[in-house]
């Protein structure tokens, strides 16, 4: 697929209230272009709640159900059930932040995944509660400054795609707003599959991560190229690396982590020891993926 093959229709209108360089609105723009007209969006409390704009206006051209923080996967299940009984076929797409996914919405997400509901759940992961003013979430990475981890977060980032994959759903993928074709291809693939689909979209946030607004894509690319964020998909249980991550299995192929960290104000107070730990954690994650791929090859 080429960028020229993209749907020309715009579903996210200009003049909305996103911050400059916002990855959430960019992510939704790409997502809706991939999804097309026949869809209903479900959006829990998050940055997108604000970005939409206020009544009687909206910046989203698709029908949208705004819903309570913890409730998006369940509300989407309800929409899906209603359309099924009425014999209608629409794509039900959740677009939730990392707080609404990894923390308060995790139970409903797990419930919907276990029931294999016919919905597509996209988590835009800006790695903190950015909408309420940059508080740490379980998806905030180790070492990152937030307004509730002023000396840097002490715990690791929760691996939500891995949790969802352990529900044995038909499709799980990671993506990045910096690699739009990779993301859109994953969304298109997901929509063709029946049952529960999960895509975890890495979304570098200039406001919360403390980098200049014009560097959103650059930071997103560096997250992938340093190996800090890995692009893959798990289809029917089989993991495959995608995009640039395909060529990053060996540590020597990856850029040094400092290139990613140094652009972001939230990592300004890292010690060498902390950077070492970040490197070790990344290596561990890649080793896990290597093992998974090797096991598959040996089967």
């Amino acid at each position, binding site marked *: 697929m080429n960028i020229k093959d993209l749907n020309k229709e715009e579903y996210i209108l200009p003049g909305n209230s996103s911050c400059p360089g916002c990855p959430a609105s960019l992510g939704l723009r790409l997502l809706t272009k991939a999804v097309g*007209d*026949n*869809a*209903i969006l*479900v959006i829990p409390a998050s940055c997108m*709640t*604000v970005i*939409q*704009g*206020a*009544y*009687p206006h*909206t910046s*989203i*051209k*698709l*029908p*949208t*159900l*705004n*819903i*309570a923080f*913890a*409730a998006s*996967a*369940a*509300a*989407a*299940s*309800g*929409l*899906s*059930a*209603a*359309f*099924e*009984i*009425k014999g209608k076929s*629409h794509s039900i797409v959740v677009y939730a932040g990392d707080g609404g996914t990894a923390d308060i919405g995790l*139970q*409903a997400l*797990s*419930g919907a995944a*276990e*029931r294999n509901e016919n919905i597509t759940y996209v988590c835009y992961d800006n790695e903190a509660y950015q909408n309420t003013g940059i508080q740490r979430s379980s998806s905030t990475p180790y070492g990152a400054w937030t307004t509730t981890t002023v000396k840097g977060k002490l715990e690791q980032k929760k691996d939500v795609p891995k949790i969802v994959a352990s529900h044995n759903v038909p499709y799980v993928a990671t993506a990045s707003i910096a690699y739009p074709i990779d993301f859109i291809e994953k969304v298109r693939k997901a929509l063709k599959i029946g049952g529960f689909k999960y895509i975890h979209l890495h979304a570098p946030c200039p406001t919360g991560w403390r980098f200049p607004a014009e560097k959103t894509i650059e930071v997103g690319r560096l997250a992938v190229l340093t190996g800090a964020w890995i692009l893959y998909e798990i289809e029917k249980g089989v993991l495959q690396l995608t995009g640039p991550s395909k060529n990053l299995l060996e540590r020597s192929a990856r850029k040094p982590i400092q290139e990613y960290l140094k652009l972001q104000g939230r990592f300004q107070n890292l010690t060498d020891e902390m950077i070492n730990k970040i490197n070790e954690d990344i290596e561990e994650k890649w080793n896990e993926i290597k093992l998974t791929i090797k096991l598959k090859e040996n089967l």
Partner: protein
Amino acid sequence: MIQVLTGNHSAAYAALLSDVEVVSAYPITPQTQIVEKIAEFVETGKLKAKYVRVESEHSAMAVCVGASSAGARTFTATSSHGLLHMSEMVYWASAARLPIVMPVVCRTLGPPWNIWNEHTDMLLLRDFGWIQFFAESNQEVLDTIIQAYRIAEDERVLIPVMVGLDAFTLSHTSEPVDVPEIESVRKFLPPRTNAPYVFDPSNPFTFGNLAYPSHHMEIKYMHHKAVEDARKVILEVDDEWNKIFCRKYGFLDKFMCEDAKVIILTIGSSAGDAKEAAKVLRKAGIAAGVLRIRVINPFPSKELSNILSNVEAVAVVDRNLSPGNGGILLEKIKSSLYSSKYRPFIKGYLAGLGGRDITVKDYIKIFEKTLEAYKKGETEWFNLNLEMTGS
């Protein structure tokens, strides 16, 4: 056809007869039998519905919100802690103006754990903008749930409805129940229409986005007015039900109230025992009556003050507690009577918490104590020797 049904199965049959399309629920004692029976209806093909077996009550109501937004007739049931756990979505459902119907098997809240009857759970959510009924019998449970869909889906209303039934005394107790033919129920309750809005990608709109202070109050006023306007619709629907099925309930169940001088005012199944007590007092020449409030929201303040305008003393029996405030019903009744020219003597009783029995004997005692207190008045002449006064 007359069947012997528990309150829980009466609720399940009501869902079946209402042709509900999406059911979502989570188990909790003593509600579980409702959703078990519905699962059986769905799995045996008796009921053509999608059954979403969720992982919590919060999700149960979220599923109902999603399904109802898409135009489906939607059902769930819960009780006690389940109701409180789902409460965020309960408020969402009414503020989103979705015609969901939910029986609540009224059960005590812990700690300490207690599965028996009390009305605190549902009364705590009185201010959540739902229409709230409390039933006295299993027949009333069945009839009210079917009526509830007509009321909730009426375009003048579009407000969800809770139907309270007492834990165990109704939920697990069998009574003869007249189960109407589905064809006649379908005439009374046609399929839900798409009016005014349901989700449809060919006509996109947004539900529940931000509203600034410039619009918020008007939206809330419309919600408030819809609950007020439901008064008329509740009576219309009840009249129509009566024409077809020969049973009528109204807002208030008035038992020997016409000439009553002392009245017990209460809600739920225990009113039956209060009525037996009133009969005993009548035989002893005391004009006793019982007034059972069937609709708690919208509250029948006017009807209530009309009836109480000829009554000397009222006993309000609260099977609920707002710690620090007392009985929720007592407060509501007192404030309802504030603008009346005549306000009877009122005494509150907190009784039957945590499923403790309130027997017919207890109600006789409550009548007697209320009359005694009324005669003494607010100020009692303490240690007064009436003989010395010559009276």
